[in-house]
């Protein structure tokens, strides 16, 4: 008995220990960074970062300018969203920038960045950005880091597949995520379930002039699918443009199911040189469309908004050699072209593989009419004929691919939360690095151009959770910087970002920093309400409109005592900053302003509208700490009752203006 009990207690102990062992969770892999990471991202005080990182802000409608490798934010640049901090979208000069055919739209969802290129390489002239909600493209001047122009895109909804550019920035494209009915009101007022019959997509080719001015050259009318992302061909594939499209099922409800039915959707290859020829030959059809074109003039510091009335269209089904479809598995998202222009990488959001197409093979297939059928009258190239090969088992949920210029591709994997490095020609996976968490876009400086600058890779993540100190339910988005100069990717830095970054680009600082504008020359200021000398500062009444011409210079406004304003007046403060020294902006703010303050750069003029509603003395002051006597930079305005006979009177230090 003693022996039995000994055995049985041994068995029980064994089972207990085994359970204990299996019942313990395995350790999760922690985040690892390399030992000397700090020194690699350290930019000593007074020194500059190596790259400007131009980062989309997603739902904040802004761009953030970040230095790399430090990850330091250098500027928040308002594009599609109003910015009360400097008066963008509130000042009379900047309000027209946000004008659209729907009126003033003060916000948007900014997803993608394209920095201008020449011969496929960064030239540092402009950055383009898209508005996803109310379709628009913005152009940012990289000498002033300001929104210089916004063009609305008509016949479009959900401008997601934008603003990708051709090799020499000939065109910037805008294609529709949402297909919609177009034309006159009666043609647009249709049942939603008539999607297949009435809904169309468009791809707009926006011509970029030598001075950057944008103009829609033509629109391609396409079947009603969803365009997702795009890249222009380069080098040997220059003249072609590749667009990923999903929802070829043409679903209009519960897309997560109904648009995921087909095993393959398409990458649409567009021969835009051919489209150019057709337009030149007069094949374009002029159709009515209403859209705004807004442009900033740096001489007057004013934005003008013009409403345009028509656009040229080509229906792609009318031309047999304009567009070809390449089957691509699992609702392709990213559609990226390698630096040589030979390889086109399609990333199926739900795929567990990455197909890579060959431009040479695609051309052979097209020339040999190697088609597997048609989609809505468009030729569909045989999948295998265009395929260079497949990256097997890269991870789950490939989204975007960038290149280092050394024959390697880097793909972001949303579902498996990692970056996967692979060889473009052999298609072998070379390395993988976890991201924290669920990376969306990734970015290598110049990684989408013909000449990547390599060195770093930044992952822009969609989920942050525990990466930083918690700040309540709403968290910033995280980004991770990797060193990609060696064989293995090394995590160097984890940093918070502004808004929700989608795509970003980075450009060597040397291509931009010397061109950066420091001041606007006051003698070049052609603003109709500019005052170039304190002697010309004045107050003028025209009916109930009162124009106050103010000058600001350290540390006073001229005039700073103003009387004769009445309740019900429409007051315009035209403030000219007379400074001609770098980094001496002045601000202007007045009590009760229901719009914003404004910041005026040296040599510029800005106008703030003010509607005084109550009698009293109103203080105004400078909001940008300008000097040791900044707190003295202030003035008073007397507001009298409506119908009062207090005359217009203004002075500085007792000296009355005439």
């Amino acid at each position, binding site marked *: 008995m003693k022996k039995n009990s000994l055995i049985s207690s041994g068995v029980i102990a064994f089972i207990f220990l085994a359970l204990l062992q299996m019942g313990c969770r395995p350790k999760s892999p922690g985040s690892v960074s390399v030992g000397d990471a700090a020194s690699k991202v350290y930019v000593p005080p007074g020194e500059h970062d190596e790259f400007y990182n131009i980062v989309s802000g997603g739902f904040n409608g802004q761009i953030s300018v970040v230095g790399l490798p430090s990850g330091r934010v250098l500027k928040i640049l308002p594009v599609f969203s109003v910015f009360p901090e400097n008066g963008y979208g509130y000042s009379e000069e900047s309000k027209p920038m946000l004008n659209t055919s729907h009126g003033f739209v003060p916000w948007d969802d900014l997803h993608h960045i394209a920095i201008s290129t020449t011969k496929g390489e960064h030239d540092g002239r402009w950055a383009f950005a898209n508005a996803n909600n109310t379709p628009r493209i913005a152009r940012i001047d990289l000498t002033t880091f300001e929104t210089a122009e916004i063009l609305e895109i008509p016949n479009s909804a959900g401008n997601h597949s934008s603003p990708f550019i051709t090799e020499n920035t000939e065109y910037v494209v805008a294609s529709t995520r949402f297909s919609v009915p177009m034309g006159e009101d009666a043609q647009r007022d249709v049942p939603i379930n008539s999607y297949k019959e009435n809904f169309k997509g468009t791809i707009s080719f926006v011509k970029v002039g030598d001075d950057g001015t944008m103009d829609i050259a033509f629109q391609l009318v396409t079947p009603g699918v969803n365009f997702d992302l795009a890249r222009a061909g380069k080098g040997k594939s220059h003249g072609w443009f590749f667009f990923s499209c999903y929802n070829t099922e043409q679903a209009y409800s519960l897309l997560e199911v109904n648009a995921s039915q087909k095993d393959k959707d398409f990458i649409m290859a567009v021969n835009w040189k051919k489209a150019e020829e057709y337009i030149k030959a007069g094949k374009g059809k002029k159709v009515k469309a209403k859209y705004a074109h807004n442009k900033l003039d740096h001489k007057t510091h004013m934005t003008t908004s013009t409403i345009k009335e028509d656009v040229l269209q080509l229906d792609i089904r009318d031309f047999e050699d304009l567009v070809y479809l390449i089957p691509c598995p699992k609702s392709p998202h990213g559609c990226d072209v390698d630096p040589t222009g030979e390889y086109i990488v399609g990333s199926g959001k739900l795929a567990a593989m990455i197909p890579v197409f060959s431009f040479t093979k695609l051309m052979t297939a097209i020339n040999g009419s190697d088609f597997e059928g048609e989609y809505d009258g468009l030729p569909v190239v045989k999948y295998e004929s265009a395929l260079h090969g497949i990256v097997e088992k890269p991870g789950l949920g490939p989204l975007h691919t960038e290149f280092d210029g050394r024959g390697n591709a880097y793909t972001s994997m949303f579902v498996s939360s990692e970056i996967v490095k692979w060889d473009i020609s052999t298609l072998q996976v070379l390395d993988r690095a976890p991201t924290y968490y669920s990376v969306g876009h990734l970015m290598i400086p110049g990684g989408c151009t013909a000449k990547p600058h390599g060195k770093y890779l930044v992952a822009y993540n969609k989920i942050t959770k525990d990466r930083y100190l918690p700040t309540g339910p709403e968290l910033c988005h995280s980004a991770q910087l990797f060193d990609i100069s060696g064989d293995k990717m090394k995590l160097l830095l984890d940093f918070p970002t502004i808004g929700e970054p989608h795509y970003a680009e980075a450009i060597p600082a040397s291509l931009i920093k010397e061109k950066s504008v420091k001041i606007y020359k006051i003698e070049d200021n052609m603003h109709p309400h500019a005052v170039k000398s304190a002697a010309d500062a004045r107050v003028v009444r025209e009916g109930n409109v009162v124009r106050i011409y103010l000058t600001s*210079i*350290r540390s006073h406004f001229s005039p700073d005592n103003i009387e004769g304003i009445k309740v019900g007046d429409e007051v315009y403060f035209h403030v000219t900053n007379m*400074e*001609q*020294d770098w980094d001496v902006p002045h601000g202007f703010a007045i009590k009760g302003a229901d719009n914003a303050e404004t910041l005026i750069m040296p040599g510029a003029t800005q106008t703030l509208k003010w509607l005084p509603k109550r009698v009293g003395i109103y203080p105004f002051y400078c909001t940008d700490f300008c*000097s*040791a*006597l900044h707190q*003295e930079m202030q003035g008073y305005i007397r507001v009298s009752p409506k119908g009062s006979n207090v005359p217009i009177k203004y002075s500085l230090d007792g000296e009355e203006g005439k």
Partner: protein
Amino acid sequence: MTKLTPLSRWLILISSLLLIILFFTPIWQIDLWAPQYPEWLSMQIWLYQVSGDINTINGLNHYIGMKHIQTEMFPEFGIMPYIAGGMIVTGLLLSIWGRKPAAWIWLIVLVGAATAGFIDFYLWSYDYGHNLDPKAAIIVPGMVYQPPLLGSKELLNFVAYAGPAVGGWIALVAGLLAVTALLIELFKKKLQQKFTSMSALLK
């Protein structure tokens, strides 16, 4: 012997020609450094104008009640180009004419004009630094802001440096050439003995 040696005449010729450059370059400069101005602010003084970061300097100096610098505040600018022009023309004539007494007069006038220029500049800078607006925002008892004539000086949060600009260096070389010319005249005999090979130039 009242004739200048050929070497002296050459030197006076070169000296006069060098002075022409003064019409195209600043002569003197005042540079200012402060923590906020790591790139230095600079003001240049020409024969007939002031240039550089004048507006910025004026903007800063108004806090301590200094006058606004502008070309119009210097009546000297109306005279100096004529003096320099006169020196150049007479110098050129002198190099052709070659009379020694005239050369002495020319040198004395040249050095005299330069000295007068410095004295005038000093007097201006004294007034600029001392004669302050009593209503100035910042008044530091006993503090004056006269910039240095040459060299550097600390003025509150600024370091001020003054020294020759390109034209100043050229004028210095021109002056030294002229002085050399007349030294040659003084020590002609000795030089002839020492440098027999150059005797033609020293005759």
